[in-house]
């Protein structure tokens, strides 16, 4: 990495290289350079406010049909959109709009569940809704949250759709191939999308798609880090139940840990150390979920972890040697 540069130094260097006109105006200070921990405080508070806002709307209007709930949801989403649109750096309007947006999304998903009475269809509607919010909502935090929840909904859609599970704790006896194919069907498209976005960063940065692409990339990296864990929130809490069938679905958290490490590598490519921390925590959460999840014996899990460890160390040694050889050659 080259040494970091200030905005003025970068502008001067571009002018010197004749890549920028000397008459180009100076860039005004960026107003939203919000550190990650403030984003978390605001996002979590806005999310919880959205839940209470939905409760308020539900108690006020008492909608008892899917159409009524959907209408309330759409109105809330429209309210959020207009608040974001008229917002001129007002933190209050931002937070108010986020709460309305979350409440509206909950309401639409609730309506979809009531109308279809199917987990698969509800997950599909949630996924479509989140993609729409990602594209339409004129706010960065709302877009990032939408991209993240779209990935979660996509994971649940494949899962419920493939195995027609009625809930998270349905008894299954998945074969290894089926479990692996399911995980790859969920996450390989997302990994490919992340790879494309990272490798074509300069292309979309210079286009109008930058706000959507940046938020989508952030949300997808977040989902790669923690979404396998989040998509089965209760799975690691049922270890007291007797279940003796072999279920290779228990392998998913381990694959999730690997995807977390992949997210850490992409975060490094983007120079985002906060995300490397998130991905590391995600990897540890996935391994602890792998320990508790039923379906495979601890002995088998132990052998798998030892095998993964050996492969990782061999790969590290090989990469290190290759790097040393390349360094020597140059």
């Amino acid at each position: 990495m080259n040494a970091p540069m200030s905005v003025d130094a970068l502008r001067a260097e571009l002018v010197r290289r004749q890549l920028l006109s000397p008459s180009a105006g100076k860039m005004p200070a960026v107003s939203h350079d919000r550190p990650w921990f403030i984003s978390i405080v605001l996002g979590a508070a806005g999310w919880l406010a959205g839940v209470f806002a939905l409760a308020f709307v539900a108690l006020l209007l008492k909608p008892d049909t899917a159409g009524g709930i959907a209408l309330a949801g759409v109105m809330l989403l429209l309210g959020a959109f207009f608040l974001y649109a008229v917002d001129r750096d007002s933190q209050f309007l931002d937070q108010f709009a986020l709460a309305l947006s979350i409440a509206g999304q909950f309401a639409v998903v609730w309506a979809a569940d009531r109308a279809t009475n199917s987990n698969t269809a509800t997950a599909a509607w949630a996924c479509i809704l989140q993609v729409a919010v990602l594209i339409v909502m004129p706010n960065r935090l709302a877009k990032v949250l939408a991209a993240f929840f779209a990935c979660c909904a996509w994971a649940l859609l494949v899962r419920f759709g493939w195995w027609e599970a009625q809930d998270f704790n349905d008894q299954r006896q998945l074969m290894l191939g089926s479990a692996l194919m399911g995980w790859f069907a969920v996450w390989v498209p997302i990994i490919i999308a992340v790879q494309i976005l990272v490798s074509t960063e300069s292309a979309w940065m210079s286009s109008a798609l930058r706000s959507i692409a940046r938020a989508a990339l952030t949300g997808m990296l977040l989902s790669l880090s923690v979404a396998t864990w989040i998509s089965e929130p209760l799975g690691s809490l049922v270890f007291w139940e007797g279940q003796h069938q072999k279920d290779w679905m228990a392998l998913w958290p381990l694959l999730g840990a690997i995807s977390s490490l992949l997210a850490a590598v992409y975060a490094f490519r983007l120079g985002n150390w906060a995300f490397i921390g998130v991905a590391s925590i995600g990897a540890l959460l996935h391994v602890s979920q792998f320990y508790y999840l039923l379906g495979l014996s601890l002995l088998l899990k132990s052998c798998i972890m030892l095998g993964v460890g050996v492969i990782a160390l061999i790969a590290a040694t090989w990469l290190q040697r290759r790097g040393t050889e390349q360094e020597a050659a140059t």
Partner: protein
Amino acid sequence: MNRRELDAFVAHHNLSASTTDAVLDLAGARPMPAELGQFLVRVLQLAGVLSLAAGLVFFIAANWQYVGVTGRFALIQGVIVASVALALWKPAPHALGRYALLMAFIATGALLALFGQTYQTGADVYELFLTWSLLGLAFVVAGQWSVLSAAWLMVFNVALVLFFGWQARGGWAWAALSLLETSASLRLLVPAVLNLALWLLAEFGRRARWSALDQHWVSSLALVCAFGFMTSAGLVALEPHTMSGDDGMALLVVLALETGLVVYAMRLRNDVFPLALTAASLIVLSTFAFGAHTDFDIGTAFMLAVWLIVTSTVSGRVLMSLVRAWGNKEEVAI
């Protein structure tokens, strides 16, 4: 320049894709292939060591009948001896020494678990984690590595959660604490203060350039743990129908500690993180107090939504103004 500033720069000057490429290179926003390779090697090495350690822990937990007690003890002790030998051969800060000490630290926990599993010592789980953290301290000191320090901090905090959070009744620590007849909320302040002391130590160590604490995130982790316990103490104190004089005292202490941290951060003027944690803690406590002490109806739902929006807005405005005034050199925006 972070990605947000770069996005704004490219948008402001309406740069082409090829110029944006040059901007990303000039700003040092993309790692060189060699740097990426080094990072990948470090990730794989750490993941490999942690996977092997997890495999060992899983194996002990599996309680496999075909390996006898002696064999299990020999296995773990062999791993510890081999790890320490490696660490002595290539001492920290050499990577091999550090990874070996991390393995020895985790294997120590597995050894204690096996001891409890085999001899049914009757020890509480918190005693396992507490003993683990005490024994593992030697590896942390020898390792001089932030990852090892963070691992130790997590083990120590698990012991604190198990003891103070779940109120385990047994062992020498309980015998000592039971002499003080206090409420659960006041007890939860003990681990909070311990973590605050660790945070101060980590901050001191970072300024003194101790290798074990040279990363800012280690001290931040201790601070997060401290706030976790302080907020839990406040929540327990605010539980309706059970409030006592001790709970009132616990709330006052929580507020005093958080005020002290705010004053400390405002004096140093270099880190907004403690203030963000204070804001989050106060939002949680005030929202819980409001929600738990009123009947939930349409008015409460409305007021809670408004309260959350207003408090988070005010917090966000104040914190962002401080970020701009102090500069946020240590933090990365997302």
